[in-house]
């Protein structure tokens, strides 16, 4: 018996101080002021917030740290920040600004020792490894890791990479299906199932959820947390609606 509630995590993609959302990592649409969104989601019962910085500029990165600091003062739930973290200095700056955990993606593939470094200095609970995966018949598991916002194929098998990340001290895997991102087709359940069976750490499902049923599927396939973005930004489904649905299906949620 776990007792632990499954977490519903709204994700805010930041570009130069605004929240944006795209489809398959492209065609970005403005979705509003980050602080306003954060407060709304906390009030709706979000269990945690994820921020993903997709700014391409140094100026954008600085704006991001300031936004995190502003939001930290206003909300009292955990914040995970990722996107473009390439060094310990980047990670430390965001943690100092008010992030509770940082997620590393491309940098972890290029230089896996950063996972150990973050875990050692800030604790394993701080070290989230984000994996963007896409279907690829050439891989043993059928899924390949891509980096640089999906632009660069790595030749790494997603399940093998997740296992290595866990061995190196990652405290959580944030697992996004590029194929499902922004499609509303639901999570890539087979991918979630394979990765959560392979690692002894929590897995967050991401990419494609648009209805309460999708969240239940993600949970039943082994995810301990369920992330979504667009459907919350467009107010298609509220967090409390999803939690009511999960609770009605005997899934532990914080209501």
């Amino acid at each position, binding site marked *: *018996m*776990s*007792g*632990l*509630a*499954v*977490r519903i995590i709204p994700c805010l993609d930041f570009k130069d101080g605004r929240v944006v959302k795209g489809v398959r990592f492209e065609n970005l649409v403005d979705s509003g002021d980050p602080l306003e969104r954060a407060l709304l989601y*906390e009030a709706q019962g979000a*269990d*945690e917030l994820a921020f993903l910085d997709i700014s391409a500029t140094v100026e954008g990165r600085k704006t991001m740290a300031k936004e995190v*600091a502003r939001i*930290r*003062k206003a909300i*009292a*739930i*955990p914040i995970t920040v990722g996107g473009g973290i390439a060094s310990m200095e980047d990670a430390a700056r965001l*943690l*100092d*600004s*008010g*992030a*509770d*955990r940082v997620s590393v993606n491309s940098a972890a593939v290029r230089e896996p020792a950063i996972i150990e470094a973050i875990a*050692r*200095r*800030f*604790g*394993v*609970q*701080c070290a989230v490894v984000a994996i963007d995966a896409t279907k690829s018949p050439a891989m043993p598991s059928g899924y390949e890791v891509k980096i640089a916002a999906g632009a660069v194929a790595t030749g790494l098998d997603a399940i093998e990479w997740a296992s290595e990340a866990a061995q190196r001290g990652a*405290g*959580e895997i944030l697992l996004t299906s590029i194929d499902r991102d922004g499609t509303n087709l639901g999570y890539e359940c087979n991918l979630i199932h394979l990765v959560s069976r392979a*690692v*002894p*750490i*929590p*897995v967050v499902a991401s990419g494609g959820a648009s209805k309460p049923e999708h969240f239940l599927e993600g949970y039943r396939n082994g995810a*301990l*947390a369920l992330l979504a973005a667009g459907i919350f930004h467009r107010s298609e489904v509220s967090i409390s609606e999803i939690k009511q649905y999960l609770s009605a299906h005997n899934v532990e949620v*914080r209501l």
Partner: protein
Amino acid sequence: MSQIRTPSLVIIETGVANLASVRALAERLGLQPIVTSDPEEVVRAPFVLLPGVGAFGPAMHKLRERGLDAAIRSRVAEGRPIAGICLGMQLFFEASEESEGVQGLRLLPGKVKRLSGGLPLPQLGWNRIEPEPGSRLLLAGWVYFANSYGVGIEQKFNDGTADTSKAAFPRFDSISIATTTYGSAFISAIEAWRDDRPVLLLCQFHPELSGSFGKNLFARWLELASERRRV
């Protein structure tokens, strides 16, 4: 002390924790957060918080290096209130499986152990705390955890069964715990009272990340632990 000054919460700087969330908690409570590694200040301050991120060994090392372990011990010996969060709770015990051979603050008997039960670790997310009957500060509710280690519920504090002979543990009038289940049960919070004040408030969870529940818990602690209640 000047009456116009905003009351402060002294947060112990261990050099390994990120402190933005606990600072924000202090501000929400109307307190000025003062982050320090000065042992004098830690002994003197009306309210002290030992935050907790990082590993047991390095955190104890930092505390010893700066004489903060002695400062915390002398605070507790004098019955002055201090709170500990997550690792900051674990450090109050004798030792931890996380860093074998490192001595903790030894203000409470027992050893911190890796959570058992075969579930994914760390435990990340919201779980319930259930206070035992007689708790005056702790209430039942949902709180946020991020831990792989904890103190097992077999640990006894008050009923004379604990082997407290080998260490000089400070005296408390009463100790109540709250428990949480993740695979197996562990102690998720402790309130220790002396002279009708909650001298210790220890939380394995993160009150600063537990929404209004955490804020209300700390507000109650600050009120009940306040110096004014003594007169």
